């Protein structure tokens, strides 16, 4: 009676012929399946796989130096970043980027380093001398407009869960709503309504990240790999026939190992078919009230954030886009309104995120609506920050749990996530701002780096220059920055 492996070998021999015929019929030259070059992760060629960019934004800074919190140096705020521990080995941090040098649009006045009106451009802008109407292209749009980084539906998407509808201190809402700019007067309009975003991405009569011809070519690559495995298996059986019984057992180990790879390869094909089905026949993840205003009702905020994260993850998975910005709220908390009542202890809060970020200046003629109890204010401010940090970690976990495009990596492996605020500590300043980076965008960026740039006068620009170069954008200058942060790049 034939052993199981021998039966499989017989079937496999038959399928070798089928695979050969298939490849002949394809009539195209097919390169070998490309697999991971066995050098350290950081040196992997980026050109073989998609790279994705996700920027996460929260307003109003944080209540204590993030330096201390990240380093766990006697920081009373260590609990704020504790959940990031699960991604500690994947996190780089760029610290002490001097926001006061960024003078864009009168955001941070050098006479009084107060970032009350700090908006997106203060963080993402490359040109500190820009004036209204001459807004420069932001770094993410350089990436989005490169054809190597374009999805099948949109070059980029922007999401803002705290849209501002009114002018604030003479500054138009667009500067508080749009993190991304394609150029002067060309903001990338953010989505606040998950239904509209979903329909925009998926409602185009079926869309996947690749064309049918590309899918067919990918399938042919995998089947060609299986052809090589078939030949190796056949050779093992032939060699076994020449050797003694004990030696045959040793060769069976090799056979089992090959068959295991073959199974996984087949599973990968099946998985691609499932993803293709999901991306072309997608159902909206949740029913959201149709026609809601651009300003999300606070009672729907938590649910909307969760749904928006899921949409971004799925959009990445289906390769509908590769560049996304995701703001938890606009700068200054979307006005005074976002009260975060879902945060424990803030039920019935009379002040919002922005107001509480003034926790430290109640006695200096600050916001009269803020209580004079510093400790309570700071406590509540920290609660809000922690809640939003926890949502960022949720987002990272979703990316990590979702398979990547074409091998055993996850979406997080393919993505660079840049998370932070346009303000610094103790909240509401733009002296020293930080960005946390996660994932390596397919090995383009080093993970686990700690970069302190406190003596660099170019503000945040060097970081964004670095990001652009990691995505292969041929640029030597971004705003005042002419040198990237080399330790973040793998090549």
């Amino acid at each position, binding site marked *: 009676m034939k052993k199981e492996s021998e039966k499989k070998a017989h079937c496999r021999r038959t399928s070798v012929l089928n695979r*050969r015929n298939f*490849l*002949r019929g*394809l009539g195209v*030259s*097919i*390169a*070998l*399946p*490309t*697999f*991971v*070059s*066995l*050098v*350290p992760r950081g040196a992997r060629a980026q050109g073989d796989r998609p790279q994705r960019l996700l920027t996460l934004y929260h307003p109003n800074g944080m209540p204590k130096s993030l330096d201390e919190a990240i380093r766990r140096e006697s920081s009373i705020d260590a609990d704020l970043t504790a959940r990031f521990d699960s991604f500690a080995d994947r996190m780089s941090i760029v610290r002490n980027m001097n926001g006061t040098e960024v003078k864009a649009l009168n955001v941070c006045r050098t006479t009084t380093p107060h970032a009350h009106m700090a908006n997106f451009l203060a963080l993402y802008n490359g040109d500190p001398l820009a004036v209204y109407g001459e807004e420069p292209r932001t770094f993410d749009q350089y990436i989005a407009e490169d054809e190597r980084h374009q999805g099948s539906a949109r070059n980029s998407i922007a999401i803002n869960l705290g849209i501002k509808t009114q002018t604030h201190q003479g500054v138009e809402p667009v500067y508080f709503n749009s993190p991304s700019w394609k150029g002067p007067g060309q903001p990338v309009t953010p989505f606040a309504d998950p239904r509209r975003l979903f329909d925009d991405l998926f409602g185009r009569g079926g869309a996947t990240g690749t064309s049918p011809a590309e899918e067919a070519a990918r399938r042919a690559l995998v089947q*060609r790999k299986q*052809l*090589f495995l078939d*030949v*190796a298996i*056949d*050779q*093992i059986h*032939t*060699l076994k026939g*020449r*050797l*003694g*019984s*004990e*030696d045959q*057992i*040793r*060769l069976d*180990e*090799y056979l*089992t*190992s*090959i068959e*295991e*790879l073959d199974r996984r390869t087949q599973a990968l094909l099946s998985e691609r078919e499932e993803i293709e089905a999901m991306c072309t026949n997608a159902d909206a993840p949740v029913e959201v009230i149709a026609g809601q205003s651009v300003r999300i009702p606070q009672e729907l905020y938590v649910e909307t954030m969760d749904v928006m994260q899921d949409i971004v993850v799925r959009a990445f998975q289906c390769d509908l886009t590769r560049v996304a910005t995701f703001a938890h709220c606009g700068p200054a908390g979307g006005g005074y309104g976002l009260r975060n009542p879902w945060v424990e202890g803030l039920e019935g809060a009379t002040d919002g995120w922005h107001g509480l970020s003034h926790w430290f200046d109640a006695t200096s003629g600050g916001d009269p609506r803020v209580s004079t109890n510093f400790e309570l204010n700071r406590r509540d401010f920290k609660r809000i920050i922690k809640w939003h940090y926890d949502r960022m970690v949720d987002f990272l976990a979703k990316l990590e749990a979702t398979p990547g495009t074409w091998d055993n990596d996850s979406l997080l492996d393919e993505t660079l996530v840049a998370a932070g605020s346009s303000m610094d500590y103790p909240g509401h300043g733009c002296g020293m701002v930080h960005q946390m980076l996660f994932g390596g965008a397919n090995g383009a960026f080093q993970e686990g780096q700690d970069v302190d740039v406190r003596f660099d006068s170019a503000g945040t620009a060097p970081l964004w220059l670095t990001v652009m170069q990691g995505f292969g954008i041929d640029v030597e200058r971004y705003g005042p920055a002419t040198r990237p942060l080399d330790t973040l790049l793998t090549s």
Partner: protein
Amino acid sequence: MKHFVPTALVLSLSFACQGTIMDQPEDLGVGEGPGAVPFRPVAPETPVVRRLNAREYRHTMRDLFDIDTTALQLPNDQGTGGTFDTDGSSLGLALGDFELYYEASDAIARFILGNGHAPVPMCEETEGEALHACVAENLAGFLERAFRQPADSNVIAQTLMLTESDTTYEEVTRSIVLSTLISPYFIFHYKTPAVERANGVGVYEMADRLSYFLWSSMPDDELRGLAEDGTLNDPAVLAQQAQRLLTDPRSERFFSEFMTQWLGISEFYRAGDEEDRSLFADMEEETRRFALRILRADEPLARLMDSPESVLNERLAEHYEVEWPAGDEEWRLVTMPPERRGLLAQGSLLAARSLAGDSNPFLRGAWTAETILCVETPPPPPVPPLDENMGQVETVRELVERHRADPECGSCHRRFDYLGLALEEFDNYGRYRDVYDFGLPVDASGVLPDGRRFDNLAGLAEHLGEESSFTSCVAELLSTYALGRNIHGAHAEGIFHSLDLDANARLSDVVLSIISHEEFTGAP
């Protein structure tokens, strides 16, 4: 008067043997005359086939394609049961290991194209139908080199089939390299049973065994040519080739790896502070240089036991309190004091087999018996609580002898206690002493199993250098290394008795004896 005996030593006795002793085969030859070398029982039908280990894979890539593959991840060689990394029982394949081979092959295929080491260079300027015709005509030569024997027509046809859809030389090359390096004909060493052999494959397999034994890599053109025309079957030619390989610089791989793995040099336990670890690293280097010097010069293997010289740096000379000779080299040949002879007196072996605070005669004795004399020392059975009377002994020797007097312990301990006691002249850092810290003199005298006496380690080393038990042990271990499986029991007897080795045997003598035996040649 009761004297303090190191607590650690007393405690170590609690792990000594008590209880039921496992049955031992009668041929375990304890104290039964010189040259009585006990063997372990051999498993029937021990498999012969084994895969390339990581070392061999990398050396083969260097010799086949002239590329450095240090950065590539390969299957783990640390399986259980093996003595050397050439031992097939340690070279298993786990799930996922094939993928490592696949990815390595793919990476190598891409790399060699960029570095001009194409497998079928004569076809480089062709394309289309001319390319495929050229490859078909010339592929066999490449496969023969990679597989270390001619590829049969079916394998050639399979390889050509995999290139059918390729249209450029680069694509063809990648297909050929990838399929070749994942083929079992490349991955495995094997010996076709005599009754199954055809087309003289046996001589190719022998050439493969010879080159991987002495070079850890594939045969060169000369060796392959002698296999091709069958000349290698001539014992004189085979012996001449073995000599050639031994004197080739590539044999350094063999010398170094065998010594390192045999003596466990790379497993030296690095306890202590940074200064200690640095000292231990120097001690390892001493043993490595000492052994390599004797092997390269093809001196009698017994010199490893009784040589009055060693190779030291200045720090070790100071540590051993030895006069540092003049010269420019960092490492110099030094005449050692009379109490130090050979390997057993070197710090790497002494310090590695000590406790944190003092020497340990049981560890040292057992290790020496197993590693240097190939005497089996089974692990102790489960032990009862420590006997309170142990605390009344006066000296280390008394402690050891009282322990050995117990028949349940003695049957094992008499095999090696005399070795450990001889090494008591050296403390846990390998420094010479004639008095213990607790005041009593060191008594390193002893009696060999055959009744000969010695006064100290130097005397023991002299005896061991005069008899064949050490050389026989080295021969056994070399056979295991060369053949890729443990050689034991009656099976081993057949080999060793035919090797006709004596105490003056050199490495070349042992190698020539091994490679001329039918176990190696595969002759019926």
